[in-house]
């Protein structure tokens, strides 16, 4: 018995097996997968609102398009750039940044990796390999403003925004215009949760503001406040009044109290961007999502259908058609 060659053989066999495995693995990753990297904002994928919507869209693409998906949540504002860069340096084909906070980082990294494709939500980055996914928030807000005015019995509606930034002012302006379209005498009370990114995640503050508004006679509040909106919903429950959700469909969170949600279909934007890029049809430049392509909309489902009588829905849909046809021009805070 000579153990030496035997051991050697076994070793060779194992090495061959290993190489085969490596080959198969690299082949599968080379051909089967279109790789997408998703860098979420600091809210993270469980905010039930903005980031959650982006994550859903990407997950849908993973299921239906068979892409390879990797998502990360940034740990600080200086981390966006290294994360985007790490995706670009690996063999990721499309890198998507969620939220306006990543604007500078995307601009910089996209310039350094001109062969890679990038996309960003809520910011306009002008580069040959970046697609900017922008939403006509004011159009959607206009419709829910009209719904609020049609529903309100007191002639007073409210608005609770998250962080006081132009983006949220844009929601507010559209909402007010929509409400005034239905009832020119209506009073619209706007409040904001704060001035830092903390304002997206401060439910007690949202609740406090909503309580004051409800006690002042307001009976419908539109919450465009990220996770702080849940405080508004709590207040609606305590005061038995109505609230309107934002970004994701939030009707299910408090059935019977959420009049409707203004949908901002970040999921749709992310999904179509991935699908188009995978089909080799990536297009750079700004892509706007409005009422016409259902990028913004209002929600009807089993949780709120009893709150929205046919007359209200009809009026809302009429306004929608008029905006799409250009007969109504919704005032835009960005163009003020």
């Amino acid at each position, binding site marked *: 018995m000579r153990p030496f060659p035997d051991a050697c053989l076994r070793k060779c066999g194992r090495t061959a097996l290993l190489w085969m495995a490596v080959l198969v693995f690299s082949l599968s990753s080379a051909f089967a997968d279109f790789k997408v990297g998703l860098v979420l904002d600091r809210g*993270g994928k469980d905010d039930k609102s903005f980031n959650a919507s982006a994550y859903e869209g990407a997950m849908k693409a993973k299921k239906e398009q068979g892409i390879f998906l*990797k998502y*990360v*949540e*940034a*740990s*600080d*504002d*200086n*981390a966006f750039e*290294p*994360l985007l*860069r*790490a*995706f670009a340096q690996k063999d990721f084909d499309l890198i998507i940044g969620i939220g*306006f*906070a990543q*604007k500078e980082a995307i601009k910089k990294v996209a310039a*350094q990796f001109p062969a890679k494709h990038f996309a960003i939500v809520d*910011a306009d980055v002008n580069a040959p390999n970046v697609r900017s996914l922008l939403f006509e928030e004011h159009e959607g807000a206009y419709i829910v403003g009209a719904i609020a005015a049609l529903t309100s019995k007191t002639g007073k509606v409210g608005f609770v925004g998250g*962080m006081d*930034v*132009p*983006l949220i002012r844009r929601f507010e302006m559209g909402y007010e215009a929509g409400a005034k379209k239905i009832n020119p005498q209506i009073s619209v009370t706007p409040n904001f949760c704060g*001035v*830092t*990114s903390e304002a997206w995640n401060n439910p007690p503050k949202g609740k406090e503001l909503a309580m004051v508004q409800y006690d002042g006679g307001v009976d419908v509040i539109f919450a465009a406040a990220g996770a702080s909106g849940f405080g508004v919903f709590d207040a609606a429950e305590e005061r038995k009044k109505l609230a309107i959700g934002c970004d994701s469909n939030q009707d299910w969170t408090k059935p019977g109290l959420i009049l409707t949600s203004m949908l901002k279909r970040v999921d749709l934007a992310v999904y179509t961007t991935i699908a188009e890029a995978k089909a080799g049809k990536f297009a750079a430049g700004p892509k706007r999502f409005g009422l016409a392509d259902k990028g913004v909309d209002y929600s009807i489902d089993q949780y709120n259908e009893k709150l929205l009588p046919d007359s209200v829905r009809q009026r809302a849909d009429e306004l929608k058609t008029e905006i799409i046809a250009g007969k109504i021009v919704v005032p835009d805070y960005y163009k003020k």
Partner: protein
Amino acid sequence: MRKVLQPILAVALGLALGLGVTRIAGESPWHVLQILWRSAFGSNYDFGMTLFYSTPLILTGLAVAVPFQAGLFNIGAEGQLTLGALAAAAVGALWPVMPWPLAPVLATLAAILAGTVWGAIPGWLRARRGSHEVINTIMLNFIAAGLASYVTLYLLKNPDSQNPETRPIGAGYLIHQFGVFGGAPVSLALPLAVMAAVLVWILLWRTVLGYEMRAVGQSEPAARAAGINPGRIRIIAMSVAGGLAGLVGVGEVLGNAGKFRLGFSPEYGFIGIAVALLGRNQPVGVVASALLFGALHKGAADLDLETEHVTRELSLILQALIILSVSAEGLWSWMKKRREA
């Protein structure tokens, strides 16, 4: 020898516990360790990012270590660095046309001054009013955050951005970034921080003032008997600490962002406490442990990216376990010292 060995053991223990957790989460510890290593030192850019995160940690580590030597616990580095950065950005935004060598020097002095003032307040309160610096520094952190929000959003808001940040500083204020790091924002702030560590060492072990600080830290009655005024020493120690923390603004504002961004610090001031504890409140140790924590902070994001099961939260657990075992070790020796005293 034990002085060097104990912190290393603490790190090893924390890392082992952390890797055990990743094992439970279904990720091979060896793989995790490899990623951490690669993330910190894998390329010039990665190493640059590690150095970028280490730079403020050296300064906040020193800002905790100096008062610690004088028997004070500075939890206010976060507020001190916030105001330091804000002051540097404010100077750069208010007087944007300023020639190069003068501009960064001016902004740096503003950062040091703002931090010093914010450190001196709790020092003075402790020395003259006897109110505890732990409470006061924590409260001053909140005031600094509120002040920074107000100045940023109502006085110096950048009109071209949705982010809560100040107007950009003038071009003359930007300091040199080292090219070898492939675009990672490693600036002159790094040598500045190392120089600060050297100066702190000289201050503590080669000057009368430093001797007096350590004397007060080790035994106040003995120091008093030797004719040292503990109140004066405490004010000075906290002022020096504030100035050191304020210097964080140089790397962030002049060497990286070119403006003050609300929430730019991932709690450098609090990680600085762990850095100082692990570094045994010695400048050399602080520099070394700042490098470790910088690498861990960089690694956290990459673990999330490169593994299937380790998310950002789990990488935070890893960091926390290391911090915990480090501080447990620090607490233990501190209590022992107390009992002996």
